[in-house]
């Protein structure tokens, strides 16, 4: 599957890593819900590390969509939270 590390690029990773990422992901959500920024940052860093170490970098010209999009750990809790909202941090995409 393909994973995007926001601000860095896309990686192709083995589907078998999904479980590991899911577990980290659940703990990341728990940290966010508890307003525990250090824990959230650590979980995100761990996810980045897994993807970087075990994944294969896609070229910048690759237009494949990602299955997962992982934000960077240097966002504030508030910024991370707004990433999910419909009118959140990710700006509106072109529309007509």
């Amino acid at each position, binding site marked *: 599957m393909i994973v*995007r590390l*926001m*601000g*860095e*690029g896309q990686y192709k990773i083995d589907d078998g890593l999904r479980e590991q*990422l*899911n577990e980290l*992901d*659940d703990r*990341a*959500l728990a940290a*966010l819900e508890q307003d525990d920024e250090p824990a959230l940052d650590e979980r995100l860093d761990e*996810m980045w590390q897994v993807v970087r170490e075990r994944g294969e970098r896609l*070229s*910048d*010209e*690759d*237009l*494949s*969509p*990602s*299955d*997962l*999009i*992982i*934000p960077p750990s240097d966002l504030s809790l508030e*910024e*991370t939270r707004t*990433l*999910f*909202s*419909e009118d*959140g*941090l*990710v*700006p*509106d*995409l*072109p*529309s*007509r």
Partner: protein
Amino acid sequence: MAGLIERMSLVIKSKLSKLLDRAEDPGETLDYSYEQQRQLLTNVKRGIADVATSKKRLQLQTDKLEQSLVRLDSQAREAVAGGREDLARQALERKTLAQQQLQDLDGQIAQLDAQQEKLSTSEKQLAAKIEAFRSQKEVIKAQYSAAEAQVRIGEAATGIGEQMADTGLAIERARDKTEQMQARAGAVEELIAAGTLEDFTAGDQSQLDRELDQLSTGRQVDAELERLKAEVGAGAGKKELEQ
């Protein structure tokens, strides 16, 4: 319950699919999307230029503060030599304040550097994807029926839409940072303009300036006098009188 990343990925995808649902004529959609991509690329370039401008402004302030430090330091020495501890203290207080500001500035410049770096990476990736999209759109327009084209456009547009969201976030974050820095730079400039961080001799003559001037004039006269005394009085004997 989906995790954090899963939810976020879903939000971004739903944004993209809403966009694609609105597409009617595939060829037109492709051209329009390409225009939007070019526009975003222009925005990143502008973002990079803005960060560079802010950085330059902070660097100028750094230069100014460094000059102030040197002047304040020599003025403090002069005051001590003249036995005016009160003046020396004031000069040193200003010097400390300037040093703190200087440290803050260093940190801010480093942050802007990091933003500039991120924007440049994003620009490079977006440019590469736009180029790939451009050649792919011509192929899609030329070779596929409307139904097939719709599917292929969906894939290409999702892939590049994701990059656009990513780049858009980088631009927004850099803009926030730059605005914060501009506000702080403004505050430091006000301090400098108000004379708080300026040396005693700059601008209008204050009471302090005059006192320091008198001090150094007095010391110069003393030294001169000593020299004359030595020349006239001693004749050949002792010419080596330092202040």
